[in-house]
C-alpha cells in the first residue's frame, strides 16, 4: 500500500481566486457578525500585515483598502468533492481528509509510471486548475497527511522508513486528538517520535483509547477506516458572477473555466459528454438555457469550449446574467476515434467528427447531415437524412439534382431523350401520384428529369436536373 496525500492549504481562497483573479489584498472572513475574523488571506494581504485569526476590525485599522469575502462552507465542500473527482483519474481508492485528498497509488504507478512522474502529473493537474497544494506519500493515508503538514514532495515508500520519517514531526503538526495536542508539549514532548516511544499503557490511561488509535493509524498497525469517495454520476457546477454581465463576451472567461472543470471531471471518470446545458441565471429566478448537443461523446476541454462558445455567440442576452450553471447529465462512455496506422491524411488533420461539430456549433444543429434512400418510390420521399444507406440501386435513370418542388417548363417543346417511366403509387397515404417521367433536353441545353400526366407529353413539370 502506498498512499498519496494532496494537502490543499488554501482551498477556499483558491476557489475564489480562480473565478476572479485579483492582485489586490483579499481576505476571507468568518464568524459572528460582530466578531468577524480572518480565516484566509492572499499574499498581498499578508504582506500588508493581515494574518489568519486577526479580527476584521483590527485588519481594517491596518489596511484601508482590501476585499473581505465571507467564507462559504458549501462552496469549499463543493471544490473538495470536485478535486476528489479529478484525483479519481489516478486511483480507484480516493478518500477525503480535512483540507486534503488521499489516494492509494501503489497500483497506479504501474500505469502512470514511477513516483516522480506520477507526482508531476498530479501537480500539473492541480496547478492547471489553480489550486495550491502540497504532496507527500507514505504507506498509510494518515501518515501521508501528516507528512504534507511538514514538507512538500516527501515520499516514504516503505514501512521501515516510515517510523524514521515520523520521528521528527513536531507535535503541533501531527494531527493527533486535540486534548493530546494541548497537553503533550507541556509535558516536554515535542515530536511524534517521542510520543511513539512512550509506553502505550500510560498513554491510554492518560489520554484514552483515541490517541492510541490515531497513532496506530499513522504507523499502519490499525486500518485507516476511511470512507472511499465515489464520483457523482452527474456534473453540476454553479458559479456566481461578481457583477451583472450584460455582454455575452464577458461570459467567455467563466464559461471557459467551467468547461475545463467539466473536462477534468470527465477525464477522471474516463467518460465523455454528449449533451450539456449552460444555464444563464438572471434576476428573480429567471434563466436562459443554452443546450449544447454533440453528435458523439467528447471530453477534450478546448473542443467542448469551442462548441459552447459557438452556441453562446448566437445568443442575445435578454437581461443581465448573475450566475452560471453547467449541468451535464448525459455522460456516456468515451470511445476515442480509431486511426489507421497507415493514415493517408496529413498529420495535423482534425477528425471529421470534430469538423462536423464545429460546423454545427456555428450553423445550427441541423445544418450538417448525410442523405440515404428510403423504400418509397415517390421522388419526394425517396430520400431522407440518414447515416446508413442499404436500399438497392434504382435501375431507371435518376437525376443528380432534385428540385424541392417541380417547376413548369417554359419555352419550346423539349427533346425527349428517354422515357416514359410511369410512377403510379402512394395510394395508401393520401399522397397519390400518377406521372410519366421522361429525360428531356431543354432549349438551353440542360438535361432535365420532367414528368407530365400519363400519356400526354404536354404540361411538362421539371423535377430534377441531370447535372
Amino acid at each position, binding site marked *: 500500500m502506498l498512499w498519496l496525500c494532496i494537502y490543499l492549504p488554501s482551498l477556499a481562497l483558491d476557489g475564489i481566486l480562480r473565478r476572479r483573479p485579483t492582485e489586490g489584498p483579499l481576505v476571507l472572513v468568518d464568524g459572528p457578525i460582530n466578531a468577524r475574523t480572518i480565516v484566509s488571506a492572499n499574499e498581498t494581504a499578508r504582506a500588508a500585515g493581515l494574518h489568519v485569526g486577526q479580527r476584521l476590525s483590527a485588519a481594517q485599522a491596518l489596511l484601508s483598502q482590501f476585499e473581505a469575502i465571507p467564507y462559504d462552507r458549501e462552496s469549499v465542500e463543493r471544490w473538495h468533492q470536485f478535486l476528489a473527482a479529478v484525483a479519481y483519474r489516478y486511483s480507484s481508492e480516493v478518500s477525503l481528509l480535512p483540507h486534503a485528498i488521499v489516494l492509494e497509488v501503489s497500483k497506479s504507478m504501474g500505469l502512470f509510471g514511477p513516483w516522480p512522474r506520477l507526482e508531476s502529473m498530479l501537480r500539473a493537474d492541480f496547478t492547471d486548475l489553480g489550486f495550491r497544494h502540497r504532496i507527500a506519500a507514505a504507506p498509510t493515508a494518515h501518515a501521508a497527511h501528516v507528512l504534507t503538514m511538514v514538507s512538500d514532495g516527501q515520499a516514504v515508500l516503505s514501512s521501515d522508513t516510515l517510523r524514521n520519517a515520523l520521528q521528527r514531526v513536531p507535535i503541533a503538526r501531527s494531527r493527533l486528538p486535540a486534548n493530546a495536542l494541548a497537553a503533550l508539549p507541556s509535558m516536554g514532548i515535542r515530536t511524534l517520535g517521542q510520543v511513539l516511544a512512550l509506553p502505550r499503557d500510560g498513554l491510554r490511561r492518560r489520554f484514552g483509547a483515541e490517541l492510541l488509535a490515531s497513532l496506530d493509524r499513522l504507523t499502519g498497525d490499525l486500518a485507516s477506516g476511511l470512507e472511499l469517495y465515489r464520483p457523482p454520476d452527474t456534473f453540476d457546477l454553479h458559479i456566481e458572477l461578481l457583477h451583472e454581465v450584460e455582454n455575452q463576451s464577458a461570459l467567455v472567461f467563466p464559461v471557459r473555466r467551467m468547461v475545463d472543470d467539466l473536462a477534468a471531471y470527465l477525464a477522471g471518470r474516463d467518460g465523455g459528454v454528449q449533451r450539456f446545458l449552460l444555464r444563464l441565471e438572471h434576476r428573480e429566478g429567471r434563466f436562459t438555457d443554452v443546450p449544447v448537443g454533440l453528435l458523439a461523446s467528447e471530453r477534450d476541454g478546448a473542443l467542448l469550449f469551442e462548441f459552447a462558445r459557438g452556441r453562446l455567440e448566437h445568443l442575445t442576452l435578454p437581461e443581465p446574467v448573475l450566475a452560471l450553471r453547467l449541468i451535464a447529465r448525459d455522460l456516456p462512455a468515451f470511445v476515442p476515434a480509431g486511426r489507421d496506422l497507415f493514415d493517408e*491524411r*496529413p498529420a*495535423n*488533420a*482534425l*477528425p*471529421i467528427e*470534430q*469538423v*462536423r461539430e*464545429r*460546423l454545427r456549433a*456555428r*450553423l445550427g444543429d*441541423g*445544418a*450538417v*447531415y*448525410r*442523405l*440515404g*434512400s428510403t423504400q418509397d418510390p415517390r*421522388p419526394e420521399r*425517396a*430520400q431522407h437524412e440518414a*447515416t*446508413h*444507406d442499404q436500399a438497392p*440501386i*434504382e435501375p431507371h*435513370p*435518376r*437525376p*443528380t*439534382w*432534385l*428540385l*424541392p418542388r417541380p417547376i413548369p417548363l417554359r419555352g419550346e417543346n423539349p427533346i425527349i*431523350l*428517354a422515357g416514359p417511366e410511369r410512377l403510379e403509387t402512394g395510394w395508401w397515404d393520401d399522397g397519390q401520384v400518377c406521372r410519366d417521367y421522361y*429525360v428531356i433536353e431543354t*432549349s*438551353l*441545353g*440542360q*438535361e*432535365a428529369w420532367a414528368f407530365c400526366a400519363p400519356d400526354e407529353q404536354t404540361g411538362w413539370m421539371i423535377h*430534377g*436536373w*441531370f*447535372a
Partner: protein
Amino acid sequence: MNAVVPLSALLDARQVWRGRTPEVRVGDQPTGWRALDAVLPAGGWPEASLSEILLPVDGVGELRLVLPTLARLTQGQRNVVIVSPPYTPCVAGWRQQGVNMRRVEFVDAGEKDVLWATEQCLRSGSCAAVLAWPHHADDRALRRLQVAAVTGQTLAFVFRDRSHLSNASPAALRLELEAPPRPQIWVRKCRGGAVPAQAIPLPRSVH
C-alpha cells in the same frame, strides 16, 4: 548556348509539338474523363488545389464532371463535403454514379457562412474533396480557399457563374462548361501547362 536543357522539361512544358500522340499520363487525382485527363498538365485534377468550374446555368453537367471523382474517393472510404448545394442532391442519381452516400456530408450554410464552412472543411485535412457553391466570392476569398486546400491537402471545387470568367482567379484550374449546341468543357486556365486550344466534349449521362 552553354545551358543544357533536359529534353523531358521541354516536353513537359508542352512547347514542343510531337507527331506521335504521347501516352496519357494518369495523375494521382484522375477526373474519370480520359479526354480531360489527357489535356490537363497534372493528368487529372491539380492536387491539393482549388478548381473553379464556371457554368452558364445550373444543370449543364457540372456534377457529371465531378461525380466520377467523388465515386472514386467515397469508395475509398474518404470523406467528401458538399457545402450549400443549389438544389437537393438526388440520392438515387448519385448512387447510380457509384457514390457511397455514407461518406458524403452535406452542409447547409447561409450566404455569409459558405466560405467559412468551406475553408474549415478544407483546412481540417479530414476531407478528400470539398464542393462549394459560394454566392459572393471575390479574388481574396478564393485565394483563402486555395491556401486552405494546400494546408489540408484537399481537392477544392468551386462552382460559379460564367460571368466571373473575365475576373482573374487564384484557382489552379478553371474549367468552363458550355451547353448548346452540345455539352463541352473549355479549359480556361491550368497551372503548369499551356491551355489547350480545343474544347473537350462532355458525354451525356443518358443515351
